[in-house]
């Protein structure tokens, strides 16, 4: 990496900053190139899935009720008479200009559908990650501070449950208990039926739109509906975040500076939250980023269970109707968001951690 200059021969400051700027430009270029290559890889995979695997891609797009004329028109429109590499180039060009094809089941452009459904997923996943961070981080810190206690064991089991409970099952059980029995939360969907369509979509996120338009009743109704799916989703990020926080904290608590602080008589609360917790904030950002990306994936199952009109629900509906354009469009969008979050949390780590600079 960087070589330390001896203090006496160090170059003048402006030259140093010039060097650093060049290095930063270099880093940004490498970052953009890898990002681009990863996107191209994602496109290659979706292209492979959509055009190479199906025995008859035309049939997969138009559906089996199409007439021969429609079939022939679609075949030429899809450019299937071209060689494979030309088809790929056209495909990449289409995707970069926002053309993802038409959806057979909704009859609209896939790109339009996705932009309408995305806010609902975003709203739920964001609430989920907030729940996961707000509960998971304190749990992980507590578990590490009392290593070996019953609390630590309990948190460990919660962490493993996050790896072994099916998300759709937890959603169903949550509905059976908190909606059907206890009536604490709303049922499937984003709002009760009689509130449907009363809020004009601005951001597409009902919690925000209803507040902006001063519809407090609708806001609380939306909260009532989103609490359960967001908590189920939050449970999975909570389990992962708590597990990783615990392991980071254990590393720190065994360091010598922590022992020194304790010997000096620093209160335990300050040792834990200042001396040990401060250094792990940066790796935690990466963990939170990864888990946020994972929630987008988890939301596919949760949305199916809760009839939540987001991308996940759109994807599963398209899967069952063999609506390939919609399937590949959703895969692309979820994959792209996943890649961007991954890379951004990686970059944040490098920017914030002085050792990785």
């Amino acid at each position, binding site marked *: 990496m960087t070589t330390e200059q001896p203090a006496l021969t160090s170059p003048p400051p402006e030259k140093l900053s010039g060097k650093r700027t060049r290095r930063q430009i270099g880093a940004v270029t490498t970052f953009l190139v890898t990002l681009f290559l990863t996107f191209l890889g994602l496109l290659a995979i979706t292209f492979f899935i959509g055009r190479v695997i199906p025995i008859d891609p035309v049939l997969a797009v138009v559906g089996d009720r199409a007439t021969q004329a429609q079939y022939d028109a679609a075949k030429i429109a899809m450019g299937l008479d071209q060689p494979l590499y030309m088809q790929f180039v056209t495909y990449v060009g289409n995707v970069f200009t926002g053309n993802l094809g038409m959806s057979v089941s909704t009859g609209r452009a896939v790109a339009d559908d996705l932009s309408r459904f995305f806010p609902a997923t975003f709203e739920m996943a964001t609430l989920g990650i907030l729940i996961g961070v707000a509960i998971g981080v304190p749990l992980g810190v507590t578990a590490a501070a009392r290593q070996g206690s019953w609390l630590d064991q309990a948190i460990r089991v919660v962490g*493993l449950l996050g790896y072994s409970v099916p998300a759709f099952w937890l959603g*169903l*059980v949550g509905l059976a208990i908190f909606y059907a029995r206890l009536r604490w939360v709303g049922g499937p969907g984003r709002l009760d039926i009689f509130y449907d369509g009363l809020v004009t979509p601005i951001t597409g996120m009902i919690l925000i739109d209803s507040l902006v338009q001063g519809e407090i009743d609708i806001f609380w109704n939306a909260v009532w509906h989103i609490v359960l799916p967001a908590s189920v989703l939050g449970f999975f990020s909570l389990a992962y975040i708590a597990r990783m926080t615990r392991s980071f904290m254990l590393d720190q608590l065994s360091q010598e500076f922590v022992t020194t602080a304790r010997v000096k008589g620093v209160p335990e609360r300050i040792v834990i939250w200042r001396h040990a917790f401060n250094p792990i904030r940066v790796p935690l950002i990466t963990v939170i980023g990864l888990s946020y990306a994972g929630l987008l994936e988890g939301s596919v199952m949760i949305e199916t269970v809760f009839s939540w009109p987001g991308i996940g629900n759109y994807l599963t509906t*398209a899967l069952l109707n063999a609506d*390939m354009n919609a399937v*590949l469009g959703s895969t692309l969008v979820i994959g792209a968001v996943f890649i961007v979050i*991954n*890379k951004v949390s990686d970059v944040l780590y490098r920017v914030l951690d002085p050792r990785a600079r």
Partner: protein
Amino acid sequence: MTTRDWLLADSPTSRWQANAGRAYRVFTALLRNPLSVLGGVIILVLLLTALFAPWIAPFSPTGQNLSQRLLPPSGVNWMGTDELGRDIFSRVVWGSQITLTIVLLVALISAPLGLLIGAISGYFGGWVDRVLMGFTDIFLSLPKLILALAFVAALGPGINNAIIAIAITSWPAYARIARAETLTIRNAEYISAVQLAGGGPIRVIVQHILPLCTSSMIVRVTLDMAGVILTAAGLGFIGLGAQPPLPEWGAMISRGRTFILDQWWVATMPGFAIIIVSLGFCFLGDGLRDVLDPKSEGKS
């Protein structure tokens, strides 16, 4: 000389004795951790249930009896009956065969594939390494479940295609591990000795590099099995995995979805089976990691 002395001998006289001794040491170390014992017992019960399903299940998994539909759990039907009057307990027992098949086939396809790609990449280095690892990294940076869903959508629903899709999405992690292991041993002197004696790349990789990757591989595969079970159940739940009337646990939960508000047991019971088996693999994997690969703790 007792069997134990023979197993723990300091200077084993045959390769077989050395291997048996190592297996014995791993086994006794595992026995000291109660959670990994529990995990091992769960996996053993799964194996026995799958093998002896016809004798364990009190009823037929597919036989319908509409007069007995949607009965709550009782002494006769331990987990109640579903909407076609089939005994849920019997279906869960038979379902263990499907789960075990999926888990075994995914492991048998993806682990050797990843192992081979990683070992080739690490052994040859250079542009081979760059191309193969670039490919691996692209797969690694994509969401697994979504990718599996898209593959099944193209291949068509069904249990075989679900297995293929899950295997396609799980090999990259193994390739990464195998490459890292290969890099640490590639320049070892015994490898140079084999090369000087005329051993070609195939012989070096297959006979001298792959065997050394197995222990970290076993740990990783065991830990991943919970995820494989969840993905397979998820595909079944959406309707793209095992098709009815196969008693696949995820598909059973999906059928019970309609009745979740009144007949909770239809959807809930198969879920417990999934959780217990996944937890079993997690416990066993954690224990195996502590014994075989203690350095990797905390890495995801």
